[in-house]
């Protein structure tokens, strides 16, 4: 991807979508293994990794003052932090999947996936319009 044409936010949005798609795969794994003895539910901890991807953290150094400026190129994102859920103390078989929690997490994740994707689309349409010198199509 050309760093001149597409800035940090653009590639960051792609990373966010990737991470959320990966989270969906983990949720699917948890739901599929709801009855597998000893299976520990797993998820991606989104606390800082999303902000890092789009450059929303303070440690970015350069701030853009003009929309025409290209943002700072980002480092490649490191692997997403995957966490496990411990089974409850009274669990018989060590399985820590709660279908309700998985469904809630999945709902939120898919909403944010769609919101991020739509935002990316709108931004692309704007850039496309500007790139075509204001002529439609």
């Amino acid at each position, binding site marked *: 991807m050309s760093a001149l044409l597409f800035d940090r936010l653009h590639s960051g949005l792609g990373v966010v979508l990737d991470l959320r798609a990966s989270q969906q*795969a983990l949720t699917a794994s948890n739901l*599929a293994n*709801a*009855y597998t003895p000893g299976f520990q539910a797993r998820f991606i901890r989104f606390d800082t990794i999303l902000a890092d991807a789009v450059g929303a953290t303070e440690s970015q150094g350069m701030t853009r003052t003009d929309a025409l400026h290209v943002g700072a190129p980002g480092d490649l994102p490191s*692997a997403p932090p995957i966490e496990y859920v411990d089974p409850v103390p009274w669990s018989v078989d060590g399985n820590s999947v709660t279908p309700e929690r998985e469904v809630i997490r*999945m709902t939120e994740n898919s909403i944010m996936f769609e919101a991020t994707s739509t935002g*990316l689309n709108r931004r*692309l349409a704007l850039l496309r319009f500007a790139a075509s010198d204001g002529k439609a199509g």
Partner: protein
Amino acid sequence: MGFIDTLSITASGLTAERVRLQAVASNLANARTTRGVDGGPYVRQLPLIESVGRDFGTELERNLAWAQVTEVANATDPFELVYDPSHPHADDQGYVKYPNVNILNEMVDMMTTARTYEANVNAVETTKQMAHVAISIGRG
């Protein structure tokens, strides 16, 4: 990461839950069957489920887990003995062996499995939605 893996994972879950439901149905139907196919009482069916995944690739790829039913085993807990010498299937001491099926447990299993099955179906719908959204990126 594509959605193909995600869909196949959910498919494996749906299969596992379907096998569980079938076992529950069979157990409930035969809860009082004193003479099964092999001459003894019906034995509770117990699907054994394992998670299988990849042990190569990124940390994320290694955390993907498909569900696999390795076998539908005969449960080994003991039969229920009821003293009833008049029963045609009573043994020499007058005891009848009833299946090792606990109807309440089976009912609970049936409800939880059905709910989880629904959650997996929900997961298919959500994955499909996300895939459609991804396909539409850059369109118009």
